[in-house]
Structure formats: structure tokens, C-alpha cells
């Protein structure tokens, strides 16, 4: 591999980050408030719920399944938290939310992995049922969270805002789980080829099941973090959250067909989308162009990724005559 090639590969690998940088520079040149530490902190805090959601979704996508019910899980567990756990200390509230959402994820997992229902349909069904139950317990009215929970938004750990701590913890655990444990590697195997994985002796069903449990639990976590931020939820809470989560995950390079991607990408995708939205507000852009600009940025990011992986594939192919490439 000669040095020119190596530089090309490095550049290509860094392409998404370069694009990110370009976006920062454009917004930065339009508003001097944009490029500040405080604003970046803001971006990460705001991206936190979607990032957590996307990390959970990544597990499901890696097994070539999909989870449309995450928004409903957020809404339902949010209602439980706001309506029934107003008085308890927040760590207990969080535990209950996590357990409840993991159970909801387990329902999805059981429907998909053990009963063999296509995940799109299964989670579409649970989406409706989940939202329906949430509406009925809240009577479709707003659910307000007590000060104990909303004040968490302003809490910090060693000076780091709580939402960032939450994302960081979730990210590290998820990354270690996927990259450093047998379960994680088996998730990739199952996602690549379910039949082959079964033949190889992997408990494919159980693995898929647990991915849904993880997605459910992280949906609850995301809901908790966003509850601390927005203070109250209404009947539209979490609507279409599944699309934001899938978008962030896929933007970060995870394939809808399984076996490819990772949580780093999910985090990156969520941050990129949030950065664009943040930049537009900061430069006080015309509200009508918001969706146009964000969509444009997503499009460019995906296009760059597509071209990049195409070229990387070509450059990194093994050759029979390696000395000619060197």
C-alpha cells in the first residue's frame, strides 16, 4: 500500500467527520454563537434521547429486524412514570421505567423471535396497543413530571450535564456489549444470516429476543432522559420517534438488512441531525426551510457514505499481485 493510497483511505474513512466539520464551519461562519462549547453541550444534550433510542435500534437492525414500537414504549413508560411514580425517588422511578420498557421489548422479542411474526408487523401492532394503553391511562391528557425528575435536567456529574452522562454510559455499555462480548459478535452473525447462524449452533432466537429487550429498555431510558428535559408529555409524545431512531442509526452506517453497522454510527447520526437543527435555530433561519436543509444535509451525508464505502471496497480489496498496489 503506497502512501498516496493510504492517505486516500484515511480521507475516505474520515469523510463523514469531514462533512460534519464542514457543517460546523458553515453554521459557524453564519453565527458566532454557534461554535461555542456551551452550544456543543447543548447539541449533545438535545441529541441524547434520539441517540439512546438509536443505539437500542441498532441492536435490532443488526439482527435484520426493525422496532417500530419505540415511540410507543417511550410514551407508555413516560405515563407510568408521571402518573404513578411522582412521589418515589428518581432512581427507583428510572428502575421501574427500565424494567417496564424491557418487558415491553420482551413482548416484541417473543412475538418476533419465538412466534415468528415479521418484526415490522409485530411492532406495528404493539405500537398501536402501546399508544392505546398509554392514552387510556393518561386519558389523553398531558402528563406532568414532578420537580424531582425535571430538575435532573440541570443536574451534573463532575460538571458534566446529566443527559450527556446518560448517553455516555449507554454508549459505552452498548459498545462493549457489541464488540467485546460473545453475545455482541453473535448478534452480527445472526444478522448476517439467520439460517447459517442456527446451523452453526447459535441460539439465534434468543439473540434476536434479547436485542428487542435491549431496544425496549433503551427506549424507556430515552423516554426518561427526554422526560427530564421537556417536563410534560402529551398524546403526540414519541410519535414517529422510530423514524428518527432508524434514521440516526442508518445514517451512521447500520444496514437495514442486518449484520453491518454499530453503535458509534448511531451516536454520530443522532449528533449530525441535531447539529443541523441547532444550527438553523441559531442562525434564525426561515422556518419553512428547516426540513429542506436538514433533509439536504442527511442526503449529502448518506451520499458521501455511499461513495466512500464504494471506493473503500475497491481500495481495500485483496489482490493477487499485491506488489503492484504497494
Amino acid at each position, binding site marked *: 500500500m503506497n502512501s498516496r493510497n493510504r492517505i486516500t483511505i484515511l480521507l475516505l474513512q474520515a469523510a463523514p467527520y469531514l462533512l460534519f466539520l464542514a457543517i460546523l464551519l458553515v453554521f459557524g461562519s453564519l453565527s458566532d454563537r454557534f461554535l461555542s462549547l456551551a452550544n456543543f453541550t447543548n447539541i449533545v444534550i438535545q441529541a441524547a434521547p434520539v441517540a439512546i433510542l438509536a443505539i437500542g435500534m441498532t441492536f435490532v437492525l443488526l439482527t*435484520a429486524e*426493525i422496532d*417500530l414500537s419505540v415511540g410507543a414504549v417511550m410514551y407508555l413508560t413516560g405515563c407510568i412514570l408521571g402518573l404513578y411514580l411522582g412521589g418515589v425517588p428518581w432512581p427507583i422511578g428510572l428502575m421501574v421505567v427500565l424494567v417496564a420498557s424491557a418487558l415491553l421489548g420482551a413482548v416484541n422479542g417473543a*412475538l418476533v423471535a419465538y*412466534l*415468528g*411474526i*415479521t418484526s*415490522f*408487523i*409485530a411492532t*406495528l*401492532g*404493539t*405500537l*398501536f*396497543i*402501546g*399508544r*392505546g*394503553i*398509554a*392514552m*387510556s391511562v393518561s386519558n*389523553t391528557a398531558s402528563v406532568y413530571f414532578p420537580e424531582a425528575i425535571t430538575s435532573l435536567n440541570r443536574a451534573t456529574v463532575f460538571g458534566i450535564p446529566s443527559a450527556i452522562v446518560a448517553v455516555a454510559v449507554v454508549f459505552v455499555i452498548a459498545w462493549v456489549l457489541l464488540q467485546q462480548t460473545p453475545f455482541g459478535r453473535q448478534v452480527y452473525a445472526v444478522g448476517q444470516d439467520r439460517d447459517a447462524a442456527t446451523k452453526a449452533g447459535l441460539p439465534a432466537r434468543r439473540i434476536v429476543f434479547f436485542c428487542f429487550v435491549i431496544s425496549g429498555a433503551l427506549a424507556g431510558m430515552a423516554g426518561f432522559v427526554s422526560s427530564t428535559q421537556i417536563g410534560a408529555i402529551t*398524546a403526540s409524545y414519541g410519535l414517529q420517534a422510530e*423514524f428518527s431512531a*432508524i*434514521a440516526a442509526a*442508518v*445514517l451512521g452506517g447500520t*444496514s*437495514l*438488512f442486518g449484520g453491518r453497522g454499530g453503535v458509534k454510527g448511531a451516536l454520530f447520526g443522532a449528533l449530525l441531525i441535531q447539529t443541523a437543527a441547532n444550527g438553523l435555530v441559531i442562525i434564525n433561519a426561515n422556518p*419553512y*426551510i*428547516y*426540513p*429542506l436543509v*436538514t*433533509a*439536504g444535509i*442527511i*442526503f449529502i451525508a*448518506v*451520499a458521501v*457514505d*455511499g*461513495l466512500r*464505502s*464504494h471506493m473503500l471496497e475497491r481500495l481495500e480489496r485483496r489482490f493477487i499481485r499485491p506488489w503492484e498496489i504497494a
Partner: protein
Amino acid sequence: MLVSEAVSRRAEREAGRSRWKAAARFILSEYLVLALCVLYTLVMIPFVPEIATVEVWQNILSDMMPLLIVCLGQTIVLIIAGIDLSVTAIISLASVVGASIMTQSDGYLSGPLAAPAAMAAMLLVGAGIGLLNGLSITRLNMPAFMVTLATTNFFGGSAIWYTTFHSTTTSIYDLPDMFISIGDRDIAGIPIAVVIAVAAALIVHGVLAYTILGRWLYAVGKNPRTAYVSGVPVRTTILSAFILSGMLAALASIVYTARLQTGTPILGERILLDVIGAVVIGGTSLFGGKGKVIWTVFGVLFLVLIDTTLKLLGASLFVIYVIKGSVILAAALLDTLRTRYLGVR
């Protein structure tokens, strides 16, 4: 060869022994969703007796039509293992573009040509966005999900913005009668919308079942590598699928717009999950290579039927959500049980 003869003879014998079973299988495989529709209707009669009236079935039929047209396009795209999230934006943008051309208050065109020209423009919008989707996927190596997510946000946003230049409110009204008649007139007793949808369904069925393009679509969906090595123009095939999907969405937009007599930029914003849901419930696979028009027809019927009964029930939103979710799950469960125990499909 000995083996083949023996095997096929045995197969014949077994087939003969259980002809009734084969018949049951046949019905269950292709017409399960239809059977479920019948079953569901029967179950619902005590709760909403109106379901047994002609008027309600006319409503069901007319409600099905535009949704069916969009779903036809989605079926094609799912067959090639793609997905088209942009259909909703196409419906919205085509609606306001068409309306802005033909509206009698300050439209671009007037006179008898306004409506046909507007409809052509609407189809063009669909084809154009489909082309953009297709090119991005084939030339830029982008995943269909992301491409169409980006285009749906972009063109959905554009539709809202576009409207502000043509109307002081949020929609465009005063469409010519010729256009509106698509929504409320009949040809020989059959509503025009039904004629359009049935024609579209027949054409798409024809393409999928009897043409070279149809076979290419399935082949690309099953395995694009093999298709490419076998000389199939994979890129053109993918491109065609997205253009067709775009144009069918635009055609649906014509029907929706005519029915509401208004071009609105949020038309169709909410139907995405219904569209994909109906197609997948019908039996088309999200992983490509599998799908049929008739399945989609049944899937759409199933969803519209549920929706209609729930509307007639007039129950509160959460009851409706829970029932709808449960019915979808129950149908899916039946589907897998029969796959498991009868070994069909």
C-alpha cells in the same frame, strides 16, 4: 433418471391422497387475508350492524382506492428489496403543485386544458422524485431507506413552503369541475376513482406477472448479484421501480385531491405506516423478491375494513388503537401458525 421418476411418482400419489388438503392449503396461502376480512366482518356485525349495508361497502370501496394505488407502487419497490418512504411527500407536493396550476383563483392555467395539464404535472412530480430516488440509490450507492427519508422530508417541507406562494391559507381551493369529478362522478355506475384504481392494479399486475420487467424486478429483489451476472440491467430495474412508485403515488394524489377538492400540503403526511403495513400484511416481504398485487389488494382491504368498523364504532381513540393493534397482531399470528403447521408459502 430413476431418482426423479420415483420422486415425482410418489409426489403424485401423495398429492392425490390429500387433494382436499391441497385445496385447503391453496385457499389458505393466497387468500388467507381475504378469509380474515370475511371473518372479521362477521365478528363485527353484532357491534356495528351498519357494516352489512351497501352504503358502508361503497364507502369501504372508495376509501380503499387511493390507498391501494399508493400501495401498488410500494409493492413494486418492496419486491426489489427497496422501500419508498417518499410516497407521502409525493402525494402532498403533487397535490399542491397540481392545484396551483388549475385553481380557478389565480392558477397558472385556465380553461379546459387546465385539469389535464395539472394532472400531467402531478404525474411528472411523482416521476421526477422517483427518478431522483432511483438515481441516488443506483448511482450513488445509497440505501433506499435513507434516500427516501431525506426526499420525503425535503419535498414534504417544500410542499408546505410552495403553498405559501399560492395561497393566503394553508391549502389551495377552487379546482375545476372536470378535475373534481374524478372524486365524485361515476362511469356507468362505477366511481371514476374505482375505475382508475382497478386499471392501475391490473396494469401493475400485468407488469409483475407477465413482462420481462416483472421478472427482472423479482430477480433483483431475490439477489441483485446473481441478476447482474445473468445480464439483468439491475440499475434500470431499480430505477423503474422507484419511478413507477412515484407515479403511482402521484396518481393516488390525484384521487385524494379530487376527493377533497383541495390541494393541501399535508395530504398523505400520516399514511406511511398504513401504506407499508397494508402491503406487508398482504404478504409482500420487506426483504424483497416476494409480492403480488392481489396480496396487496387484500392487505389494503383488511386495513380499510378495520378502520371503517372502528370509525363506525365511534369509540375513543385509545380503544381504537388497542383494537387495531390487536387485530393486526392476531392476523400476523394466524399467518405464522399456518406457515408453521401447514408448511405453506
